């Protein structure tokens, strides 16, 4: 299993450009999350999804959009990049849809290795 895969690993954008950060997981997890991490700070939740077709805002959703058309994929879209969006973005997943731990509410989150985004 690859776990949670994020692409690209690095990107530089100009102010006002748009891009999509890709995230895919192969663990049959219902829940997926997007966080941003600024230097020396904890992770802040941007958006999350509890299953295909369902998304909701987290703590810092402004300037971002998400979609969840399949269980595996949860892309994050930046429409008009701003310098304040320079950060490291992490995608995570949890809650297996099947198997021994299906339905338990205390499962850990599995993270990808992040996308480092600079907006200049």
């Amino acid at each position, binding site marked *: 299993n690859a776990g949670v895969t994020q692409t690209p690993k690095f990107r530089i954008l100009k102010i006002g450009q748009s891009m999509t950060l890709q995230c895919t997981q192969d663990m049959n997890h219902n829940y997926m999350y997007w966080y941003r991490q600024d230097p*020396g700070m904890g992770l802040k939740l941007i958006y999350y999804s509890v299953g295909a077709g369902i998304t909701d805002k987290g703590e810092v959703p402004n300037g971002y959009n998400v979609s969840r058309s399949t269980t595996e994929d949860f892309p994050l879209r930046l429409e008009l990049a701003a310098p304040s969006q320079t950060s490291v973005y992490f995608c995570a997943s949890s809650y297996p849809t099947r198997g021994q731990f299906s339905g338990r509410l205390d499962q850990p989150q599995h993270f990808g290795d992040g996308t480092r985004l600079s907006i200049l």
Partner: protein
Amino acid sequence: SQKIEQNSEALNIQEGKTATLTCNYTNYSPAYLQWYRQDPGRGPVFLLLIRENEKEKRKERLKVTFDTTLKQSLFHITASQPADSATYLCALVKNAGNMLTFGGGTRLMVKP
């Protein structure tokens, strides 16, 4: 407002000693608490989970305590090794939706 605090200063210890990291929270009644390890350039990796009705949890050289009266969790690494050097994050879950709120992390440096 809800706050989770970890010591932002790096913790430097000698190999073989016990490292103790602190996570304090305010205005929170978490259902459970998780600890993650993060290496430079990598995503966090889950280490341990402790529930609000548990006082202590162990896994190999790791031990976590959870004091809901003090609103504090302590994370211990016994017989520390240079390979334990990393940033350690605590995260609280307030309800059953598994939404995590993270502290800022503490960087641990274990010197040989």
